[in-house]
């Protein structure tokens, strides 16, 4: 290699290093952390956006950094059991096996599960039994429940979803032959559920109240004549509902305990209310 080429190469390599270095340095304007604890949080996609808001407020308030992933209630519980997360977010109560493994739960809010349908369905009110039959595949056309004719596209959540757990429990109680067929379309998160209903006019699905704001095409139906709203969840007239909990290995302590206290305090609960969840703490809706 002759001298000129070596020179050019050296300059090029130096330039690349400099540019990358500058980029890395400059970009750190927002939120450069100096010290403090890091808590890792994983679990329910329902709770995930709420946790995101907590993060924005709480991190301004203290030195604690939160790292949040949303991949399902079951995944959250497992992460805490496996030791890969400090806090698990679940949109259902802990199962016995999880309690046996040492998890403890703290309720942070109540939530309703809305039944959402696509823009072409043409229904505004369904009974629990009708909903259960639709999801079991026993009713297949919107016209059978008073809507616009069209094959119903059923979408459910993945097997470890807390939202699904709540939904299935309520449905089983309403209709003894309730069973989701293997061929049902499964999605892996609340956002994906809303996206599916947004994109398919004849779809039906279920999602937390907190995600209704993302529903741009389609609507939430009344269940047994009751609207899906936080007020109706609080007064228990809306039947499909559950607790949102945070799980820890053993009782919460230290930084985690402080965080939980803040969540259950006025600031935390106010944020929950703004997100259409039902607070359990000091603020009433």
């Amino acid at each position: 290699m002759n001298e000129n080429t070596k020179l050019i190469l050296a300059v090029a390599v130096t330039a690349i290093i400099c540019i990358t270095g500058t980029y890395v340095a400059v970009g750190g304007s927002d939120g450069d952390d100096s010290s403090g604890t890091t808590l890792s949080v994983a679990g329910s996609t329902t709770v995930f956006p709420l946790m995101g808001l907590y993060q924005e407020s709480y991190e301004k308030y203290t030195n604690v950094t939160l790292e949040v992933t949303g991949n399902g209630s079951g995944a959250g519980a497992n992460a805490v059991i496996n030791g890969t997360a400090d806090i698990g977010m679940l949109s259902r109560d802990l199962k016995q096996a999880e309690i046996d493994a040492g998890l403890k739960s703290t309720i942070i809010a109540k939530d309703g599960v809305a039944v959402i349908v696509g823009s072409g369905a043409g229904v505004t009110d369904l009974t629990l039994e009708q909903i259960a039959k639709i999801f079991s595949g026993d009713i297949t056309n919107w016209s059978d429940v008073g809507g616009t004719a069209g094959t119903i596209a059923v979408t459910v959540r993945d097997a470890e979803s807390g939202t699904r757990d709540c939904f299935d429990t309520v449905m089983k109680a309403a209709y003894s032959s309730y069973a989701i067929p293997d061929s049902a379309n499964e999605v892996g998160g609340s956002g994906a559920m809303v996206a599916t209903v947004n994109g398919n006019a004849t779809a039906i699905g279920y999602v937390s109240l907190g995600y209704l704001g993302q529903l741009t095409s389609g609507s939430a139906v009344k269940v047994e004549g009751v609207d899906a709203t936080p007020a109706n969840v609080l007064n228990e007239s809306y039947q499909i509902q559950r607790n949102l909990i945070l799980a820890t290995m053993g009782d919460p302590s230290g930084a985690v305990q402080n965080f939980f206290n803040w969540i259950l305090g006025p600031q935390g609960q106010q944020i929950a209310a703004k997100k259409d969840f039902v607070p359990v703490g000091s603020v009433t809706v």
Partner: protein
Amino acid sequence: MGLTDLLTGPRWRSSEGLYGTVPIITATLLVTAGAILFAVPIGVAAAIFISEVTPSRFKSVLKSISEVFAGIPSVIYGFFGLTVLVPLLRDTFPSHLLMGYSWLAGSILLGIMALPTIISVSEDALSAVPKSYREASMAMGATKWETTIKVVTPAAISGISAAIILGIGRAVGETMAVMMVCGNSAIVPDPIFNVFSRIRPITSTIALEMPYVVIGSTHYSALFFLALILMIMVLAISMASKIIVNRTRRKFGETENKPSLTGIIVAKLPVPLVNGFKNALVVAGLFLIAYFISLTFSNSFGAVLIGISVTVAIVASSLLWLNRLKNEGVSDRPRNPSEFIESIPVKIKAVSRNIITYALVITVVFMGASLFYDDVVAFMAGLAVAAAYVTLRSVFRRIDSRVVQKVAHTALLAVMIFAILLLVYILADIFIEGLPMITWDFLTGYPKDAGRAGGIYPAIVGTLKLIVGSMIIALPLGMITGIFLAEYAKDTPFTRTVRNSIDILNGTPSIVFGLFGMSAFVIYFGFGNSLLAGCITLGLMVLPVIIRTTEEALKAVPGELREGSMAMGATKWETTVKVVLPAAIGSVITGVILSIGRVAGETAPIMFTAVIMYQRVMSHSIFDPVMALPYQLFYLATEGMGSPAMQSAVATVLLIMVLSMFTLASVVRHYFDKRIRW
């Protein structure tokens, strides 16, 4: 958990403790079959076009375009599938597709992803056909097209088969794209060829269920079982392509019969045992083929019966034939299936070849048409197409060969243009939507609102960190191993086995690396979800690539250079480092750059080892997780978060990063190729 339960259980429902893998393994086979059906005609046609029809000055351009295809990360294809292909399919087939997620969508995407492999390897095979064959044919008055179709392509058929098999390998291991568009219902399509059904292949199952599997549970073992099945498939594919490559070499006269450890073991086995094994394999294969074909028109039980009867019939007639040969005193009686096939009289072979072709045509058309019309009409359609095929063949025989050539060349050109337009469309779609959103704030800002808005700075930095980390792990180790293999290792069965193992590692699907990375580094070694775990996993993934590239690059340096250096009294190490390595540096650098491109774009290995979705501040230690561009895209797209423009913007940034790597690699290779002329 019994093995039979696992293998034959018809339902996979982890929540109920059911782990029957039939629908899942079937799904992998089906989606791969569909992908091959789509990719082989287009790929081989494109390869023929590039190799035989294109003037030489355009060849390198077209090959580079094909390589660009190859460099696009699978999550981008998945994104394209999710946002464009799925709605398109839903709108085209409203009565069949409620939402658009389907086997068809998966196969189309996989087909596109397997195209570059098929094109590239087939084109190499076609170019390798000696010029003398072409000359001999043309000297007899054949047109270029006749030469291409009747001489060159048949001569290259082994290489083309190897290409197809490698394409299959690519498709089998693909995770992200199928996960995003196949619909993820763990069912067997009904009827089995219903391309509109939703399915869930092995790779998607592992990726979807890894997050919530409890370590050490039955579920956990079941997932590892699936990974094992996947690896067996990859192994089989690797072996098949090696066998074919060896057969090609023997056909063209070079005998390269140096067996590996397994080869030696097999050679030591008694011949009747090996032959018996081959025979058993053939019988099993016959049964499976008959079984699957009869599944199209009968239920499982009936198909089994038909399968058995067909197999028995074929085996019986073969045995009768053998007996007849024995009675006639024919001395060189065939002893295993391949010899047997060679001994069948040419006329019978020709007739059966025709029968099989027509049967295949009718069956395929029937399968496709029966999805839209009733069975009788579908069968008629099959017959009609077969008749058309026969007529066309005789018509083409009578037309002047030059006209045929013009038609054929035009058709090939059309296929080529179609393929290029497809690529351009995918890229354009993403760039057009995404570019407007890319501002300096976007590139340097932090995400807001759980990742739905704001900037992607941590994702970019995270990707850069992963690149640096994995290179630190893979480069030194890989280069030293490559140097060792090329310069120091003797050609023993042991080293051959090592090479084979590296090849297998090379073909291992990325999700398997992810699974391994998670259980080994995240859980077992206790690194947790961290940059470190991610870097090690990614490093292991590209290690084989670097080893191979280094080894090949060094081997390409002619022996004269080494001899010249040693003759001056240099040691082997000095020769290697000061003479050989610098001479090979171009290819080595190219391999490194290509690996960087891969690391930047891979999602599956980092999904459970290194990434989180949302980071308000930059992580500081290697034990912290990071955000990364491909995972960010996956998460935003599948959760429907962020505006479509934002998703496209993330995709654009990722694309620009990966594509510039590949362009850089091309430039470097070109530069060094020009300077070094042996």
